[in-house]
C-alpha cells in the first residue's frame, strides 16, 4: 500500500469521528444483520411494513374461503361480498341509502362512539356490503400484484443474468428483444391482453401481464452482472475451479440481490397501479369478479351522491401502493453500501468530546 501523505492522514482524522460511529455499529455483524438493522431504522419503511401486513391480514381473513370447492373456512366478517342485503335507510345524509356506519369520533366529542356498525363502509346500489366488497377487491388486487411481481421478477432475473453473465450473442439477442418490448407501452399490451383474456380469471390475467412486465428489471440485473463478473472475487472463484452455475448462484447473485429486491418492490407498486388502471378502463378484472380498480370504475358516477363507494377502494389502493413504495425506499437505503446514515448532531458532539478527551489524555 502506498504511503499516505500528511494531508491524507489529516483528512482521515477529521472524518474518523463519523466513520468511527458508523463502523462501530456494524462491527461483527453479518451482511443480513446490517441490512435488517438499517431497514428497521427507516421509520417510514417500518410503519409501511406494518400497514401493509395489517391490510393483507385484514383482507384475507375477513371473508369466507372455499377450499377445493367444498370445505368452507369462515371469515370473521358477518357478510360476504355476494349477499344481497336490505338497503339501510334512515340516518343517511341527503336522503341517500346505504351509507357507511363506521364511526371514529368518540361520544364525548359529539360523535356516535367508536364502532363499526352493521355496514362500516356502507352498501352498494344493490345492497351488497361494501366492506366485504372492498375486502374481496383488495384480495384480488393484492394477489394480482403478487403474481405479476413474481412472474416478472423470475423472468427479469433469469434473462438479465443470462445476458449479463454470458454476454456476446445471447446478450445481444436478449437485449434487442427487451428493446422491442420496452418500446410498447405496458398499458397498450395490458389492454390488448386484458380485453381478450380478462374473462379467464384474474390469476390468468396477472400471469399474462407478468410476462410483459419483466423488461426493466432484466436490464438492471444485466447491468449489475456485467460489473460484478469483472470483480476480483469472481476471478478468484473461477481460478479455484468453480463452475458457471456456482459462480452465478453463489457469487454474483447474492451481491446483486440488493438491486433486485429494490426494483422488484417498485415493480410491485407499479403492478397494482397497472391492474387497477386496466380494470378501471374495462380491460382488466371483469365482473362478477371484484377488484379495487373495478369498484372505482363502477361507482365513479355516484361520487356526488354516495362518495363512500369511491373513497374506500381508492384509499386501499393508495395505502398499498404507498406502503410498497416506502418499503422499497427503506430497502434501497438498507442495501446501498454508500448510504450513510445521517449522524445526528448529538452523536457528533459526543464523539467530538470523546476525541478531545482522548487527546487530552495522551
Amino acid at each position, binding site marked *: 500500500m502506498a504511503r499516505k501523505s500528511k494531508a491524507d492522514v489529516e483528512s482521515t482524522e477529521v472524518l474518523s469521528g463519523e466513520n468511527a460511529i458508523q463502523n462501530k455499529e456494524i462491527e461483527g455483524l453479518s451482511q443480513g444483520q446490517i441490512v435488517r438493522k438499517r431497514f428497521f431504522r427507516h421509520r417510514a419503511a417500518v410503519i409501511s411494513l406494518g400497514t401493509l401486513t395489517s391490510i393483507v391480514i385484514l383482507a384475507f381473513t375477513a371473508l369466507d374461503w372455499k377450499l377445493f370447492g367444498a370445505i368452507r373456512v369462515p371469515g370473521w366478517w358477518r357478510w360476504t361480498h355476494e349477499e344481497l342485503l336490505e338497503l339501510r335507510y334512515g340516518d343517511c345524509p341527503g336522503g341517500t341509502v346505504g351509507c357507511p356506519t363506521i364511526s371514529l369520533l368518540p361520544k364525548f366529542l359529539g360523535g356516535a362512539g367508536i364502532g363499526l356498525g352493521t355496514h362500516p363502509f356502507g352498501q352498494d346500489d344493490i345492497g351488497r356490503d361494501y366492506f366485504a366488497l372492498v375486502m374481496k377487491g383488495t384480495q384480488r388486487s393484492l394477489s394480482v400484484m403478487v403474481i405479476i411481481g413474481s412472474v416478472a421478477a423470475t423472468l427479469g432475473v433469469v434473462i438479465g443474468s443470462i445476458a449479463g453473465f454470458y454476454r456476446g450473442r445471447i446478450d445481444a439477442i436478449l437485449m434487442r428483444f427487451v428493446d*422491442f418490448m420496452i418500446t*410498447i407501452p*405496458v398499458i397498450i399490451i395490458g389492454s390488448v391482453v386484458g*380485453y381478450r383474456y380478462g374473462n379467464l380469471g384474474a390469476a390468468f390475467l396477472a400471469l399474462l401481464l407478468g410476462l410483459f412486465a419483466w423488461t426493466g428489471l432484466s436490464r438492471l440485473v444485466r447491468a449489475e452482472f456485467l460489473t460484478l463478473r469483472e470483480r476480483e472475487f469472481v476471478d478468484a472463484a473461477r481460478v479455484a475451479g468453480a463452475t458457471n452455475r456456482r459462480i452465478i448462484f453463489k457469487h454474483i447473485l447474492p451481491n446483486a440481490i440488493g438491486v433486485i429486491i429494490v426494483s422488484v418492490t417498485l415493480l410491485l*407498486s407499479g403492478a397494482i397501479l397497472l391492474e387497477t*388502471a386496466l380494470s378501471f*378502463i374495462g380491460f382488466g378484472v371483469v365482473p362478477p369478479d371484484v377488484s379495487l380498480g373495478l369498484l372505482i370504475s363502477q361507482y365513479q358516477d355516484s361520487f356526488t351522491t354516495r362518495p363512500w363507494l369511491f373513497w374506500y377502494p381508492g384509499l386501499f389502493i393508495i395505502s398499498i*401502493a404507498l406502503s410498497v413504495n416506502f418499503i422499497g425506499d427503506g430497502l434501497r437505503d438498507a442495501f446501498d453500501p454508500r448510504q450513510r446514515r445521517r449522524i445526528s448532531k448529538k452523536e457528533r458532539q459526543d464523539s467530538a468530546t470523546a476525541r478531545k478527551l482522548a487527546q487530552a489524555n495522551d
Partner: protein
Amino acid sequence: MAAFILRRLGALGVILFGSSFILYNLAAISADPLEELRLSLDPSRDAQITALTRELQLDVPPPLRYFLWLRGVFGIFVGQPNFGTGRDGAAVIESLSIAIPVTLRLVLAATILAAILGIMIGIVTALRQYSRFDYSMTFVAFLLFSLPIFWVAVLLKEYLAISFNNFLRDPIIPITWIIGIGLVSGLFWASIIGRNRKLFWTTYAVAFILSSGLVTFFGVTGWLLNPSLGPIVILGLSIGLAFGVTQLSVGLINKAALRASLTMAGLSIVAFYPANWVFDNYPGPLGIFLMICGLITTAVFVGLAFSKIDRVPIVRTSIITAVLSGGLVLVDKFMQTWKPYMETEAINRRPVPTVGERNDLLNSTDFWISSLDIVTHLFLPTLALTLIGFAGYIRFARGTLLEVLNQDYIRTARAKGLTERTVIMRHAFRNTMIPMTTILVADFAGVVGGAFITETVFAWSGMGTLALQGIRSQDLNLLMGVFFVTATMAVLANFVADLLYSVLDPRIRAGSGE
C-alpha cells in the same frame, strides 16, 4: 458524428420494426374481428364475413399480414403513408391527424408544467436537505407516485370543476377557508425560507397575512367572477420579477443588469395599452407572436444599452424579465376574457368543464373566447397529469443536485470565494440541468402512453381514446396506427436525448463506447 447519427437511426428503425411486429402479432392473436358477425343471425352473414375477410385480408396469417401493413407504412418515404382503414371505414391516418394535436397539447402542457414545478421544488429540497420541508416533500412525492391517476381525475372533476362551478354562483369565501389557506401558505413559505426560528416565524406571519388578505380581497370584490390584474398590479409584479430574475441570473450586485431589467419591467406598463389595443383589433396568434418578437428585440437593445462589459448575461436577464412581464399582460388579457366567456350561453356560468377538449356548443368567433375555452378544458387533465408526473422530477432534481453539490468543482468554487448564489446557480444548477434535459425529453414520450387513462376519464378524443377504441372494436389498423406514432415519438425522443447529452456534456463523446 454523422456516422454515429446514421448508426443510431438504423438501430431505431430496427427497434420500431421489431416492436411493431411483436405488437401486431400479439394483437392479431388476441383480436377476432369476425367474432361479432359469427354470432349474428343476419341472413347475409356469410357474405359479410367474406367481404370483411377480403377487406381486412384476414385470410393472410398475421406474421405475413404484418408485412402488408408495413408496406403501407413505408409509404412515408414516398410521401404517401397508408395505415389502412379502420372498422368504421375512415382512413386511420385521418383519425390520427385529428387525434395527434389533441394529445400533444395535453402532454406538452403537462410535461412542461411538471418539469418546471418539479425541478424548482426538487432544488429547494436539495438545498434544504434533511429539513422538515425536505421530508414533507419526499412524502408528497411518494404519495403522488402511489396515486392512481383515474382516482385523482375523478376527485379533481368533483372538487375543482363541479364544486367550484357551484361555488362561483355565489362566490363568498368562508372565513375558515381564508384562515386555512393562510396557515398552509405560511407553513409552505416559512419551511422554505426560515433558516432559524426567528426568520421562520417572521416568514410565517408575512405569508399568512399576505395570502389570507389576498383571498379575502378576492372574496370581497368578486374578483373570481371578473378577474383582472390591471396596469398597477402588472407593474408591481414586473418590478418584483425584475429583482428576482436579476438576483437568480447575475446577482443584484450587477447594477447594469438590474437597471436593464427594471427598464423592461417599466416598459411592460408602457406597452400595456398598445398591447391590449392589438389584442382587441388584431386577435390571433400572429399578433401575439409579432409582439413577443418586438419585446425580445427591445429587451436586447435595452440590455446592450445598459451594459459595457459582460454583455451576454445582462441581455439574457433583460430578455427573461421582458418575456415574463409580457406574459403577465397576456394573462391579464385572458382574465379580462373570463367574464364574457362565463356569460356566453354555452358556458352558462359554469366555466370549468369536466369532459372534452373543447366546447362544441360555443360557436364564438372571438379568438380570445375560443382560446380561453381551450385553456379551461386543458385545466383539469393537465393538472392530473402534472400532479402524477412532477413527483418524479422532484426526486430526480433533488438527487442530481445533491450529487453535483458533492463534486470537487463545487468545493473549488466555494473555496475561491464565489458567492453562494453563483455557486448554486452557475456551477451546480447548470450541471444539474444536463441529466434533467435528457430525462425531460425521454419522459415526454412516456407521458404520451400515460395520457391514455387521463384521456378516457376526461373524454378527450386523443390518441389514447383511439387506441382503446381500436382494442374494443378489434380494429388492428387503428391500434397499430396509434402505436406506430407513439413508438416513433418515443424512440426519436430517446435519440434526441442521447444527442443532447453528448452536446451538453463534453465528457461524453458521441460514438464512443457502446
